[in-house]
């Protein structure tokens, strides 16, 4: 135990004295979450929309004017038939089409209820979602005003329809996503680099000649990164919660447990990389290309897996990050319990075991 503490102390000296390491460890998570957070902002301005007014009455005109007056929407293109909707979307400038039903004013007066359909181009799901919310808000305001004037309640029913991406899959994607990327980066890349650094400098040989057993060396090297990764994960969740209002519906303990599991998965990958790579640069390249790119591209963080071609969908299954993102989103956003995500958790555990077994084997071969 005393040896272990000595080893870990030494490891912390390495980390705290290297500016680059410190930056990656602590600057990066905050910078990334802020970038992603503010880049995927909920604010939209001057969005082009089109109107399909099948009623052409005074009420619809009022609503159109209100919408027109807001700073969010711009240049109302009038279209006259449903068949044109597809076309205006395809041209790309128009992001949403408002469809007023026939006899809007009549329905409103007789049935006290009328329908507006909001059709959005959901290729960019965030914008689509925001537009829908804004239109809804404007319509709600409008009905409230109507209801103040009249004694009976009017109700304008908005019906939203999302084109191209009906489930709006990138909502609150970025907090789990950034967390995954950072944990992967810190755990896998930093450990593989710190282990290969010892190899490169020749100190690994000295450690192996010492009475320390190889697995003690590895655990000693990996431990500080577990600790730092946990801090990182906490910072990201807190930033997500307080700065970006990312809800945490599920159990915070489950989030912690799953995060630690994923950290261990990433660490075992880092160890595996360090058994293959002999220099820090190789370790870094392998980490970047074999880990970071798939994590960013194939995990569902940025691009929804369901819209990928089938071969890529199949490949995405071997990427641990995919499962972690599924888990963390389910727990944080939907309040999933372990009973719901046991399958994904089991997959992560299985992967981790596999990586550890493989690196132990590789490590032994090296010693032969």
């Amino acid at each position, binding site marked *: 135990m*005393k*040896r272990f503490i*000595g*080893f870990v*102390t*030494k490891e912390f*000296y*390495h980390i705290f*004295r*290297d500016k680059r390491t410190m930056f990656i460890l602590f600057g990066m998570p905050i910078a990334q979450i802020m970038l992603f957070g503010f880049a995927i902002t909920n604010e939209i301005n001057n969005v082009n929309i089109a109107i399909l007014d099948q009623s052409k009455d005074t009420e619809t005109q009022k609503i159109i004017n209100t919408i027109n007056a807001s700073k969010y929407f711009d240049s109302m293109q009038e279209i006259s038939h449903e068949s044109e909707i597809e076309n205006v979307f395809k041209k790309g400038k128009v992001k949403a089409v408002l469809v007023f039903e026939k006899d809007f004013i009549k329905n409103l007066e007789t049935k006290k209820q009328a329908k507006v359909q909001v059709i959005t181009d959901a290729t960019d799901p965030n914008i689509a979602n925001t537009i829908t919310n804004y239109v809804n808000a404007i319509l709600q305001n409008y009905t409230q005003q109507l209801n103040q004037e009249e004694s009976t309640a009017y109700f304008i029913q908005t019906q939203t329809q999302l084109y191209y991406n009906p489930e709006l899959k990138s909502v609150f994607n970025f907090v789990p996503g950034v967390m995954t990327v950072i944990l992967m980066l810190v755990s896998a890349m930093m450990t593989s680099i710190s282990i290969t650094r010892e190899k490169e*400098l*020749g*100190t690994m*040989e*000295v*450690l*192996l*000649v*010492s*009475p*320390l*057993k190889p697995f003690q060396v590895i655990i000693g090297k990996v431990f500080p990164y577990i600790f730092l990764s946990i801090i990182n994960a906490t910072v990201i969740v807190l930033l997500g919660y307080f700065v970006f209002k990312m809800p945490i519906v599920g159990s915070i303990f489950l989030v912690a447990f799953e995060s630690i599991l994923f950290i261990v998965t990433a660490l075992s990958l880092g160890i595996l990389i360090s058994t293959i790579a002999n220099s820090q640069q190789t370790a870094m390249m392998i980490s970047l290309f074999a880990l970071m790119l798939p994590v960013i591209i194939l995990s569902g963080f940025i691009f929804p897996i369901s819209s990928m071609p089938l071969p890529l969908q199949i490949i995405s299954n071997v990427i641990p990050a995919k499962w972690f993102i599924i888990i963390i989103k389910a727990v944080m956003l939907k309040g999933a319990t372990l009973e719901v995500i046991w399958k994904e958790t089991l997959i992560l555990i299985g992967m981790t075991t596999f990586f550890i077994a493989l690196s132990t084997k590789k490590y032994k071969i090296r*010693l*032969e």
Partner: protein
Amino acid sequence: MEQSTIISVSNLTKSFGDFTAVNNISFEVAKGEIFGFLGANGAGKTTAMKMLIGISKPSSGEAIVAGYNIDNQSEMVKKNIGYMSQKFSLYDDLTIKENITFFGGIYGLSRKQIKEKTAVLIAELKLEEVENQLVGALPLGWKQKLSFSVALLHEPKIVFLDEPTGGVDPITRRQFWEMIYAQSNKGTTLFVTTHYMDEAEYCDRVSIMVEGKIEALDSPKNLKKQYNAASMNEVFLKLARNIE
């Protein structure tokens, strides 16, 4: 000096696939001896040494180091040997004191022992003024001497030095060998690999490896007589030529 054997190697072989890096070597090293382990690059001396220090397993043959079998008692072997690698083997981003504390720690020295050792070591190497400086800032010669002293911290019976004086100036090399002599006089066995043939002259006995085999083994004086050479360099060249 008492003449007990501390390293005993018999028919040690290491092959990687078809290539035999170390081919059936046998030799003995006596306690307190300075044993020079020479050979050209690729002759197999590093491979042989790696087996003796327990980080590489022999394909066949056996060796007893400090009383323990390298095959199944490598943990005990490791406790009783010190090692200084060819590459500089301390941490540049740790201070002198931190390096000593770390290496003392992994060899299981108590905090008190480490404190005492550190004080003695720093005084001996006259490093008082720089003890809290990062090792990376020290000149190479000092680093090598410090590295050697750190390898001796746990008072090993044998110290393996893998080309310890590479890239060091002649004066520092001379000082380094003085440290080796001093240690030998204390009864420590020193197992040294080197390229420098003039350094071979400082050893009690030397072995010369050529293509995985030990071609010659004796004191430098006897070797020179045997090969009718004026210097170890000549001995080495003659041996290498015979093989070709």
